[in-house]
């Protein structure tokens, strides 16, 4: 199946696939990438909208079919429900993975609102408000005023924590993506990303290629 994806992406002349199949692939890939990348990725707004619309449709189809009580339809129903559950799982897991990352580095993502969906922005803002009021009622309010800040960068240590951009990720090259520079312990070496290759690389090295869709994380 993975070969299929690579083929499709490599040649534009391949027979076009229906949008729903592409969406499933895109959703699965977004899910895998979100779970493996150390950093938050841009929110796939349109994709999630299309998927949610289809989930809604599928739910009403299933409701209609259960209403008819046709024993013939039972098998189809089981398949439809299984598919629905799997779709729901993908979306749920994707959203939860994003929330987990946002919660881990809230101040960092407050400065990068473009990566978040409006809902996530809302969540982040109110969560931060909650946290800081909790800190201040618990102990911060009794602190000297110059020590009350939560996003202080003075004094040697920045209070804004960042995800580790140099974490290693496993990736597969979907399209030839040219040459990337790899910073070794002593010297800089180069690696050519050829279609079908599997690499372990620093996230910062392949980030751009992943965003372009030339490389997928596995």
């Amino acid at each position, binding site marked *: 199946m993975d070969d299929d994806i690579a083929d499709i992406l490599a040649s534009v002349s391949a027979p076009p696939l229906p949008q729903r199949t592409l969406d499933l692939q895109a959703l699965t890939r977004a899910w895998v990438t979100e779970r493996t990348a150390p950093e938050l990725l841009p929110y796939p707004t349109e994709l999630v909208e299309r998927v949610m619309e289809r989930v809604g449709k599928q*739910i009403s189809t299933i409701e209609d079919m259960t209403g008819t009580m046709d024993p013939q339809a039972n098998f189809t129903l089981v398949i439809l*429900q299984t598919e629905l559950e799997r779709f729901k*799982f993908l979306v749920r897991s994707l959203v939860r993975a994003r929330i987990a990352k946002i919660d881990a580095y809230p101040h960092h993502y407050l400065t990068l609102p473009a990566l978040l969906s409006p809902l996530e922005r809302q969540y982040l803002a109110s969560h931060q408000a909650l*946290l800081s009021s*909790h800190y201040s*009622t*618990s102990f911060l309010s009794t602190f000297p005023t*110059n020590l009350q800040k939560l996003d202080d960068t*003075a004094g040697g240590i920045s209070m804004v924590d960042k995800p580790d951009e140099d974490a290693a990720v496993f990736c597969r090259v979907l399209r030839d993506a040219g040459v990337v520079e790899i910073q070794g312990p002593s010297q800089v070496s180069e690696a050519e990303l050829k279609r079908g290759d599997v690499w372990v690389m620093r996230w910062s090295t392949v980030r751009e290629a992943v965003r372009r869709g030339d490389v997928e994380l596995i």
Partner: protein
Amino acid sequence: MYAEQANKLVLDAKRIQKLPHLPPYAATTVRAVTKEVRDLDREVSSLLAPYNTGSTQGSDGTQIKSGGFNPADDPATACALLVNHLSMRRNKRCLLAYHRVRTDKLEELCWSGIDIADLQAAGSTSTSRNGNQNAMASSLSAEEEQYMHQYSDLLAAYKGQWTDIDLTGSLEPPKDIFIDVRVLKDAGEIQTEYGSITLTKNSQFYVRQADVERLIQQGYLQKLG
């Protein structure tokens, strides 16, 4: 010694990460650490007072340099200031870490569908059963209880936006839509698309996973196989 109390908090936080429940809030230690910070701050101001000619200055390193105090003139005072300054920051970090670990734990509870009422209920039953005073609810500080209330409201609001998907559902990939469950506690009657089922203790059913997800999380049912 400076920061000794704060170190206790950090060790406690480390321990909490591994524990299944939340130990009591270390109110005394937290108070001791905040008091230490205030004392240190006072000491810093009194050390700086002679140099404080015109402008008001804080204990922040950059401000000291720009003020009337020259560290090269009096290394001993400079050193004392630096130590005090770093200790205050360290204490703050320790306090933040301790509270963050605890709130993370509370958030985890919220996500798994336990709210504060459940905690208090669980706490009161265990208190009446074995006289255990260290029940969960009482181990939260008043601020933490409030935080948990507000966080579950926030979570509910966020979840409400995803109409078709239960975000707090299982994060295990679904294999079958029907599963075998055993009833651990009487849960009364539930309505499903295939009619109603009465869940009595020790009985076993073959039901749709989506219908009983919540009951499994709440511990009424156990998934088999």
